[in-house]
C-alpha cells in the first residue's frame, strides 16, 4: 500500500474536488473559469456562468454567475468533519467573506485508509468515489461549524438550480 504525506494527501483531495466539478460541468456545459490572482484572499476557486452577457464576451450578468469555493475532506478526518443523520458538520478554519453568489462545495471522500478506492479507472469508465454537497454563504462567517444538509448533493440537476440564488437582486 502506498503511503502519502499530509501535503500530498491534501493535494490529491483538492484535485478530486476539481475533477468532481469538471465532471458535473461536462454534463451541463457551463462556462467555468478558474480564479486568477485577483481573487487571492477572497477564497474563490472557480467562477461559473450559465450564460455569458453576449457573443464573444467572457463576462456574465450577476444573475447568471456564481462563485465556488471548494473544500475536500475525507470522512476519517474527525477534526474537520462529523457525519450526523441528516447533515455533515464541517469545521471552517478561517473567516469567510462571501463574494457575489457564493457557495462552498464540500467534497466528502471515503476514509484516508481507502485512498486507493477513491477513483477507479477501467476501460469502460472513470469513477470518483465521493459526493459533494453545497452550502450558500449569505453572510460573513467566522471560523466554526457549518452544516451541510445531506439533501444538498451537488449533481447536474442541483448545479443548474444553484443559479436561482443569483437571480435575487432584491436580496443583496
Amino acid at each position: 500500500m502506498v503511503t502519502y504525506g499530509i501535503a500530498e494527501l491534501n493535494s490529491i483531495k483538492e484535485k478530486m474536488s476539481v475533477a468532481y466539478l469538471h465532471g458535473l460541468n461536462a454534463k451541463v456545459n457551463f462556462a467555468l473559469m478558474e480564479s486568477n490572482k485577483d481573487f487571492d484572499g477572497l477564497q474563490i476557486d472557480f467562477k461559473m456562468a450559465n450564460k455569458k452577457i453576449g457573443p464573444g464576451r467572457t463576462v456574465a450578468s450577476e444573475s447568471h454567475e456564481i462563485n465556488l469555493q471548494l473544500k475536500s475532506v475525507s470522512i476519517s478526518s474527525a477534526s474537520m468533519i462529523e457525519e450526523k443523520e441528516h447533515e455533515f458538520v464541517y469545521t471552517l478554519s478561517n473567516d469567510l467573506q462571501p463574494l457575489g453568489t457564493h457557495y462552498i462545495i464540500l467534497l466528502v471522500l471515503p476514509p484516508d485508509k481507502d485512498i486507493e478506492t477513491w477513483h477507479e479507472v477501467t476501460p469502460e469508465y472513470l469513477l470518483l468515489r465521493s459526493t459533494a454537497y453545497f452550502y450558500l454563504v449569505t453572510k460573513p462567517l467566522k471560523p466554526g461549524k457549518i452544516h451541510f444538509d445531506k439533501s444538498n448533493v451537488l449533481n447536474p440537476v442541483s448545479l443548474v438550480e444553484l443559479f436561482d440564488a443569483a437571480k435575487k437582486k432584491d436580496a443583496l
Partner: protein
Amino acid sequence: MQSNSIIPVSRFQDAFERVGWQKQTSQSGKYVIWTDPSDDDTWTRLPVSESDADYPIYQQKNLLILLYALDLPENQSNTTELASQLKAYNYKLINRIVGNQAFGSEAIPYELASVLPEKNIEAFRYFYATKVKKRTLLPIEKFEFNHTEQGSFVIPVSILVDDPQPSTVRLPSHTNLYLHQYLNAIEELMAIPQNQETDFADRVIAQSIDSKIVKDFFGRGESIARYKEKYVDRVKDISIGSKGSSLLDFGLKKEEKEFKEVDLGNIRPLKEDYLEVLENREVLSDESTLEADNVRIDVLVDSIDILGKAKFTVLAIDGIKNEKSFKARSGDLSKARLDKFADYFKTSQSLTLRGDIKKAKGKLGTIIVDDLEFSDSRPTLFDDPKTGGQNNKDN
C-alpha cells in the same frame, strides 16, 4: 485585461448613467445595482466603497460590463482605453507617420516624430482658444508613442475633459465639436493651392484660419512641412486625426462620433513672402476698432521679436470674449517680461495682461502692458514648469 489602479466608484456611477443603465440601491446598502434598460435580467453590482475587499474584482468585471453596454468588443485595447476614460474623460489627437519601407519600419525620423504632435497640439490649442466662448483650459497631459502596425507610427495625445456635460445630455461635448472643426479647417487649409501669395492669403482668411496655424503647418522655420520636406525620402505619409471618448460620445450620431483623418502627405513649406503677405492681409481685413485703458486683456502670444516686442492674438477684454480675435503688438518690454511671454509662446496657453489697448480698423492693435495679472496654465508635457500654477503675479 488587467487594470492596475483603483478607479473611483463615482466614475463608474457616471459611466453607467451615461450608458443609460438603471440604478437601484441594494437592500444591504453595500452595493449599487445597475441594470440594462433593455433586459432586466442583465445587471451588475458596484460596491459603494473603493475600500471594500471585493472592489478590485467588481472594478474589473464592470469594465467588461461597460464594454458590453457601449457595444465595444471585449479586448485588451478597448479595456485599457475604457479604463483611461474612467480615470479622466479624454479625447485623443492622433498623429500618424508612415515610414518608407525602403528604409525599414523602424526608420521614423525623431525630429518629425517630435515636431508633428508638438505643432499639432499648438495649432489645436490656438484654434480652441480663439473659438471657445469662455476662457477654458485645454489640459493635454498624456503623450504616448505607439507603434501600431508595421511601418506606421501613431502618437496619440490625450486632451482631458475637465468639465464634461451632464450624463443626461446627448449632445457632442465642446472638445468633440472643436476637434471636428479643427480637422475640417486643416483639411481645407491643405486643399488651398499655393500658386500666388495674395490668392493663398485671401483663401486662408476666407476660411477663417489664423496665420499662426498656417505657420505651425507650413512655416519655413519649425513646422510640420519643414521636417516632412527634410525627411521626404524616409517618410511615405503623415496624417492627423482624432479619437473620441466612448463614454462622452455615447448616443451621438455616427458622424459625430467618428473623426476624419487629414492627409498631410503633400505638405511642403510655403515659399518666401507667403506668410508675410498673409499676416498683412489678415490685419488689413480686420475691421474691428477698440480703445480701452486699464483693462484685463486675455491673449495668446504669437511671437517675440528681436526688438523686444511681443505679438499677440487678443481673445477677450475684461473677460468678455471678442466677436473675432485680432492681432496686437506690445510696446518695448523688459527682458524678464519677454522671457515670461516666451514661456507662454512655447506652450500656446492663454494669459491675462492688465494694460491699455488700442485698435483701429485695418491696423495692428497696440497694447501697453502694465502688469501680467495671472495665469491659469498648468504644467503639461510641453510646458516649462516656470509657467505653471495659479495667480503668478508678475511685477
